């Protein structure tokens, strides 16, 4: 049997998803269910003076209305930040309480205040409009740069400052800067994004009055974590009485890592009203209340020599947390951002200083790439600026500063196990026909267009590990992953994983791995995930961790199966265990033709006896059955890296930017399924390009989200994108037996600076802020024309 790892196996999921047979949370209906509609704050910041539900309670079909008073009375806890960050001065971060329903204060437009349960959705929505809330409206804090000077929005949190964090050595950086020939300076705004999963958030709650169990179907990337938080922090019900199921989930991108108010409220309320509850977010609710991403302002400086060697780097960043600190909200701009801000380069000295602040906007949390896109954008933009100011080719300046020996101790935190950055950049340069750019530029100019080329080289740190280090740095949980492999007596295999697929195609990739390990046809392997009642505790899917952590747990559990199988096969074949070899699904006795298939061994393990004889295939002391589990905690992160090059063509008359060519060369270590990896790269690129050219979440001064629909929030579309040229280099990860590195976020991390570097190249080096929209680019084109004519 040929190895499946490395082959373009078509997705097992395709039939279900392409024929409309997916089963999403909103597809689930429970007999006698009620419908929930939330009353939300229309103000960004206000005190709640009074909530009057009397009129709404009398409305048609209303079952009950609950408010923050009820939440407080039942002592239901709120949402939490999952990672404790300490400030440079040693003080602990400051987080406000975030009750599931606001009782006294609201802090962003969309903050939930009350919930109506009614017999029909229309009745719930109609009654919600009758809940009368009296507010005392306060001045909202929305400008990131002014936040620390503004009035504190949470009592006891001075300057709206959650923490003021430092990673690195200020003194060393100062010394490095003192030696520099030149200091390159850059101010950037990393624009706020709204994740926009295709499936809006939803939950369906079923409380069983007899067993007192709550089943919560929800749109989550990590159902076990949701259960843990809801139980341990929410106090909704003990963990053993709570089942969380995340069935098919239509995209998460980080926004569905968090447990949300709606799930806590509906789970608690289902028990209270003794009825099932269904809630599905409307698109506008998703825009307003899903966690947003990015939103930094950064001042960065790079110290260089005249011949382009980097001596030191620093950045001062203000990161917007939004109104409340959420699960990965506090770690995203610190440990996921700071270490990667020095890029792939040898950087003798560096520091990252991040001030995370609260504003009256939706909470900001991990969004595809989480911290690493912001970091990569910072370093890759300033490296390009250095290239421009020093008059060095952007590829040359990068090559000059690459590490060439691995493992490579990166400046701030990471010990990068493997990589070959030179090979990656050379390959990208060749695939992109970098040397032919001048001709293509001329051709564009002959049509009256501008053309630019942009380069990015990145590394990123994903599959966060190991748990003791992660927890030492402040994480509330360990970031291992679990797997359980179960043979049925008749030889098929069910693999339970703690990872969660919401577009990553685990049912295919994981089955490929298990098929190779067990020698069982892929058709006979099923992957089960997303249900706390099935399989062991799992940590879920985010941060490109599923394959490098969850996939390896599957490998390890399979190895345990094989080890046990070997013992059984040896007994059955009357051979010594040491003489039994396992190969392609068969246990073979060395130098003989005696063998048993793994299916036969599985069968024997469940039916350990024979007719007319007392005889067991199980060795002395071995238990029946063939089920094994594994918890894998990697020794380190995985460090994918790559080089991306793109070209843009600009119409100077309108400022419209056309992305013309895009080449991505990535090193993901071993590639299990190239078809699926390509899909991940394509999707990641689209989102990174979206940030560069289109997407921009904007609040007005009063804290109203003015991009709360697809009429105003620009998503990248198929016709905005060229065909991507995808290539790979491969240096295997040394920290896991598969040699794999994460691939889910790479495209998003690399694409934004690649596109912006190309736009800025086309504009003759003029700085332009994210996103490069037509009007901004048009103005820059006019400036360029003006300065060109002045120069002439």
């Amino acid at each position, binding site marked *: 049997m040929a190895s499946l790892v490395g082959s373009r196996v078509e997705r097992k999921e395709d039939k279900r998803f392409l024929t409309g047979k997916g089963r999403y949370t909103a597809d689930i209906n429970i007999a006698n269910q009620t419908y929930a509609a939330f009353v939300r704050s229309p103000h960004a910041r206000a005190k709640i003076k009074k909530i009057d539900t009397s009129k709404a309670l009398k409305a048609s079909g209303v079952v009950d209305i609950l408010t923050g008073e009820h939440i407080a009375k039942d002592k239901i806890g709120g949402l939490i930040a999952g990672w404790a960050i300490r400030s440079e001065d040693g003080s602990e971060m400051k987080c406000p309480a975030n009750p599931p329903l606001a009782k006294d204060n609201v802090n962003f437009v969309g903050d939930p205040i009350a919930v109506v349960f009614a017999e029909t959705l*229309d009745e719930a929505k109609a009654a919600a409009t009758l809940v009368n809330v009296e507010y005392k409206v306060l001045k909202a804090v929305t400008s990131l740069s002014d936040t620390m000077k503004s009035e504190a929005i949470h009592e006891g949190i001075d300057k709206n400052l959650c923490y003021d964090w430092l990673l690195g050595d200020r003194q060393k950086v100062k010394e490095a800067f003192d030696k520099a020939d030149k200091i390159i300076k850059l101010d950037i705004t990393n624009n706020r994004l709204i994740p926009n999963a295709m499936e809006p958030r939803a939950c369906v709650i079923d409380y069983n009055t007899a067993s007192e169990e709550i089943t919560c179907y929800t749109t989550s990337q990590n159902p076990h974590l949701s259960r843990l938080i809801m139980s341990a922090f929410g106090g909704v019900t003990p963990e053993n009485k709570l089942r969380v199921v995340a069935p098919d989930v239509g995209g998460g991108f980080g926004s569905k890592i968090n447990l949300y108010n709606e799930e806590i409220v509906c789970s608690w309320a289902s028990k209270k009203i003794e009825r099932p509850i269904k809630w599905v977010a409307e698109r506008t609710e998703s825009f307003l209340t899903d966690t947003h991403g990015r939103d930094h302002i950064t001042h960065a400086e790079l110290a260089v020599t005249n011949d382009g060697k980097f001596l030191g780097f620093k950045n001062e960043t203000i990161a917007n947390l939004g109104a409340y600190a959420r699960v990965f909200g506090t770690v995203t701009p610190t440990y996921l951002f700071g270490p990667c801000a020095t890029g792939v380069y040898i950087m003798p000295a560096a520091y990252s200083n991040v001030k995370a602040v609260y504003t009256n906007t939706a909470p900001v949390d991990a969004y595809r790439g989480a911290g690493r896109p912001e970091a990569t954008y910072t370093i890759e933009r300033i490296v390009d600026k250095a290239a421009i100011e020093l008059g060095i080719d952007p590829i040359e300046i990068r090559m000059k500063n690459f590490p060439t020996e691995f493992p490579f101790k990166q400046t701030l935190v990471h010990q990068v196990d493997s990589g070959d950055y030179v090979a990656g950049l050379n390959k990208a340069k060749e695939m992109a026909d970098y040397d032919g750019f001048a001709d293509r530029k001329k051709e564009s100019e002959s049509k009256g267009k501008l053309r630019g080329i942009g380069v990015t080289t990145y590394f990123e740190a994903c599959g966060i590990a190991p748990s003791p280090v992660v927890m030492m740095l402040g994480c509330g949980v360990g970031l291992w992953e679990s797997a359980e492999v179960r043979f049925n007596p008749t030889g098929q295999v069910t693999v339970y994983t703690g990872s969660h697929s919401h577009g990553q195609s685990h049912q295919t990739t994981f089955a490929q791995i298990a098929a190779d390990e067990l020698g069982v046809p892929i058709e006979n392997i099923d992957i089960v995930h997303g249900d706390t009642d099935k399989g062991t505790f799992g940590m879920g899917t985010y941060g490109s961790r599923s394959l490098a952590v969850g996939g390896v747990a599957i490998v390890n559990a399979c190895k345990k199966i094989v080890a046990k199988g070997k013992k059984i096969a040896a007994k059955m074949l009357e051979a010594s265990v040491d003489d039994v070899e396992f190969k392609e699904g068969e246990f073979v006795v060395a130098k003989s033709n005696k063998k048993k298939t793994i299916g036969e061994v599985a069968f024997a393990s469940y039916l350990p006896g024979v007719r007319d004889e007392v005889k067991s295939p199980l060795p002395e002391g071995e238990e029946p059955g063939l089920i094994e589990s594994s918890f894998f905690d990697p020794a380190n992160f995985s460090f994918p890296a790559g080089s991306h090059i793109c070209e843009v063509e600009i119409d100077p*008359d*309108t400022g*419209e930017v056309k992305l013309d060519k895009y080449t991505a060369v990535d090193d993901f270590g071993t590639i299990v399924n190239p078809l699926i990896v390509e899909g991940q790269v394509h999707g990641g690129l689209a989102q990174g390009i979206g940030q560069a050219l*289109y997407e921009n979440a*904007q609040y007005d001064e009063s804290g109203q989200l*003015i*991009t709360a629909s*697809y*009429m*105003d*929030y*620009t*998503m990248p579309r198929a016709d905005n994108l060229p065909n991507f040229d995808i290539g790979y280099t491969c240096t295997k990860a040394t920290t896991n037996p598969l040699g794999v590195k994460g691939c889910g976020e790479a495209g998003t991390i690399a694409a934004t600076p690649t596109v912006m570097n190309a736009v800025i190249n086309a504009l003759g080096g003029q700085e332009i802020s994210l996103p490069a*929209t*037509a*009007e901004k680019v*048009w*103005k820059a084109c006019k400036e360029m024309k003006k300065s060109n004519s002045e120069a002439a």
Partner: protein
Amino acid sequence: MKTFNYHLVKDIKEAKKISSAHSTFLAGGMTTIPSMKLGLGTYKDVIDIKGIKKLSGIKSSGKILKIGSTTTHAEVAKSKEVKKSIPSLAALAEGIGDPQVRNRGTIGGSIANNDPAADYPSACIALNASINTSNNRKIDAESFFKGMFETTLKKGEIIESIDFEIPQKSNYQKLPNPASRYAVVGVYVAKYKNGTNVGVTGAKPCVYNDKNLGKALSKSFSSSAIDNVNVSASGMNSDIHASAYYRANMVKVFAKKAVETC
């Protein structure tokens, strides 16, 4: 959405009979349905006029192209008659929304709604259109479009057809809003024997006839003819997608593109 009575009517008479202060007419429903879903429009009676046969269809007399009000964008885009007589109008229809919108949305609906960023109103202005209504009125386009989402249609009055004067040459060019793909600026240029019209959508609260551009192009039909024409930013829309100043400049840029593509 609040409950309502749905009426599928066979003729204008029946439609008028049901029409009241609490009713709305429904053709493609591309604006009416979403606004009802959002609670912006609530009606007792929704009168579907798509069943009125005489309101649909395309006819050309050589001088005039007549399009029935419930003719869909897809029908206009595909029509041999339109492609032959005013190809730019077929191209405009092909550029509205997406296939679903083009298969449902109607020309009459678009005109009656008078969205400031809709494409068709600029065609009506440039192509000397007359709007024929159930009140036996024949309204010329410039007086028909009164203001933002506002026309001179009276309550209960239904657009029956639109007459477009077939030009010598014409073209429509737009800068689409990257999010909604509505026109940030859309410019329709139509050249006639006795002069050129320039209909502009997206730029102001209501579609308008840019007489300065029209005058310059009437003198000399070439893109350089408008190089020195001033398009003022005053009165132009300004939003997160485009400032008034940018829009004013784009009116000229897209007028030139349209002339060059004629």
